[in-house]
């Protein structure tokens, strides 16, 4: 028995010496993800995780990046920023990841920010608020449009139609409040006055009280709702119930088919800014985004029998940006990847075309947003 153990260990030792040498160049590239796959933001985090997993597998099937396989280590922060902070620490110190694609919510991203900056590891955030990239933080990037851009796109459309008196109904969630703040900040630039400013809770089941108050404001010409998930659907239903006729604008937080499904007939005529993914089929044949968004829609549908969401699109863009940066940096040295990210130009994603720089860690402009309107239960591109 003892002799056999000795021989076995000797053989094992020999192999153990050989393996690291073989594995040296084949160390997987570890990508860490902290996403909100449960809790109030699960609606965003769930497609994000699925997208990452699907495309990671596809990249690996096609040979990986720089000959190395990609490995995803992910944790669920349950939509709580404090948990995100803890998991980020785990990813950086224990799992020793090379890159972070994390932060479904702005709260989570900001909670991870001090850690990330201190540890010196690139983080591509999937959250919306402008505070993530303004002021620019050395290691933090993001792929979604900012909430300020959403407000600006909406106001741009309103100005075109001569609307000047607008009511704001925002959600008390981080997304809603940050969006409300940006809305108030840019209103004047477009000659808009906010004549009503109410809030509702993300799990509220009825907002007729707030809408009744808003309806009573004299001279109101439009309503802008900033929220995500089911809240805006409830708002839209109540809006129809009360017989409100002023145009209803929503934010990109409900740029999804689920919103139309939930709000039903009440969603007719709702306008919102959205990445091109929602109207993939309606895009002009020569639209530079068309190939990518149609392929994403097809891939997601094949795997999950569900329509892709724009939130999943943010994750896809983050993954592809990261991969492209790693390729250009020739490895996973964190500083090299970081500056490669900053030098990204003309990168086409599902959210738009990215042109990053040292002063712009998001890289999108207003043209990446399309103004859409709900007609006959589907999305129409407004020109």
């Amino acid at each position, binding site marked *: 028995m003892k002799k056999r153990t000795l021989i076995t260990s000797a053989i094992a030792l020999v192999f153990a010496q050989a393996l690291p040498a073989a594995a040296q160049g084949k160390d997987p590239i570890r990508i860490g993800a902290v996403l909100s796959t*449960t*809790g109030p933001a699960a609606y965003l985090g769930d497609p994000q995780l699925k997208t990452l997993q699907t495309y990671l597998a596809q990249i690996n099937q096609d040979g990986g990046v720089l000959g190395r396989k990609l490995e995803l280590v992910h944790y669920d922060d349950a939509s709580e920023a404090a948990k995100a902070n803890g998991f980020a620490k785990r990813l950086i110190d224990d799992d020793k990841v090379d890159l972070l694609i994390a932060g479904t919510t702005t709260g989570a991203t900001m909670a991870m920010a001090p850690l990330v900056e201190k540890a010196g590891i690139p983080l591509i955030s999937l959250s919306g608020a402008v505070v993530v990239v303004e002021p620019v933080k050395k290691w933090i990037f993001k792929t979604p449009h900012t909430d300020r851009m959403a407000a600006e796109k909406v106001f741009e459309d309103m100005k075109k139609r001569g609307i000047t008196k607008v009511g704001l109904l925002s959600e*008390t969630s981080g997304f809603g409040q940050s969006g409300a703040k940006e809305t108030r900040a840019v209103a004047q630039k477009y000659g808009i006055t906010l004549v009503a400013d109410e*809030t509702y*809770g993300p*799990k509220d089941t009825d907002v*007729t*009280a707030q809408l009744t*108050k808003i309806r009573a404001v004299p001279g109101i010409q439009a309503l802008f709702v900033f929220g995500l998930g089911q809240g805006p659907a409830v708002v839209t239903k109540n809006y129809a119930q009360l*017989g409100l006729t002023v145009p209803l604008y929503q934010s990109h937080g409900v740029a999804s088919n689920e919103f139309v499904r939930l709000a039903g007939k009440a969603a007719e005529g709702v306008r919102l800014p959205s990445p091109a993914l929602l109207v993939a089929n309606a895009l002009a044949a020569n639209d530079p985004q068309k190939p990518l968004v149609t392929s994403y829609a097809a891939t997601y549908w094949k795997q999950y029998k569900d329509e892709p969401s724009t939130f999943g699109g943010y994750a896809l863009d983050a993954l592809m940006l990261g991969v492209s940066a790693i390729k250009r940096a020739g490895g996973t040295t964190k500083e090299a990847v970081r500056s490669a990210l900053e030098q990204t130009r003309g990168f086409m994603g599902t959210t738009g075309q990215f042109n990053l720089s040292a002063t712009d860690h998001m890289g999108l402009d207003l043209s990446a947003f399309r103004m859409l309107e709900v007609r006959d239960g589907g999305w129409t591109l407004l020109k």
Partner: protein
Amino acid sequence: MLSQLLQFLFSGLTVGATYALAALGFAIIYNASGVINFAQGEFIMLGGMAAVALAALGLPLPVAIVLAVAVTGLAGLLIEKFAIEPAGRADVVPLIIITIGASLVVRGLVQVTLGKGTHSLPAFSGEQPLAIAGATLLPQSLWVVGVAAVVVAALAWFFGRTARGKAMLATSHNRLAAELVGISTRSVLLLSFVLSGALGAVGGILVAPLTYTSYDMGIMLGLKGFVAATLGGLGSGLGAVVGGLLLGVLEAMTAGYISSAYKDAMPFVLILLVLFFMPRGLFGAKTIDRV
């Protein structure tokens, strides 16, 4: 002015009817066992989600609804059998933790099997709003308030006029005495959980067309139901209903007249005030504690 007040009243009563059903669920279980069932909110969620899932399988809506109520009643039974009964005569706090654990299990199960999406049920009789004196009301709201009223009346009849119901009431007044006169307190407990489960499910199904349902909608509803039950006085059925309606209306009024941001704080401010001045709630009986 009046139409605004009326509008707030309508939305408050609709939401309040849901709270009332949740509060009743709390009251029934509390009466039979002294347990505050933190899983009550999950019963409401389970009813709605089960109905959605069954309807999606192709079953006609009424069948799906009946089955969903049955499923939730079963869930209540399972919780009583596997969580409450084994705990025996545990103290208040461990029991609270157990019911919280049970609520997590229900929520976790729904999350894994039915997903994290938001779902809706078709409105029972259409979506055309009704105009009444300048305010509008959705027909579904009438369903909510109407069915809730029928349920409350049925429960009152059950507790007041049937032997089973009276046995449950007897158990709530004095468990030992009830056992002595031959009432099986075990089966009373079981029945209370099944009943509360079914009640919660009915509430969840009624409001699903209005408010949607998702795996995590039970948390806030359970909490507000608890507040409503405490407001009315724990253990009082009438108190639960009044508490629920009052809560809903006051919430709507706060949102309409004071501040929509603090609307969610109002139930808790109210309960603090009530408890400070009326420690037994609005209708709670003065109890005598044996020491």
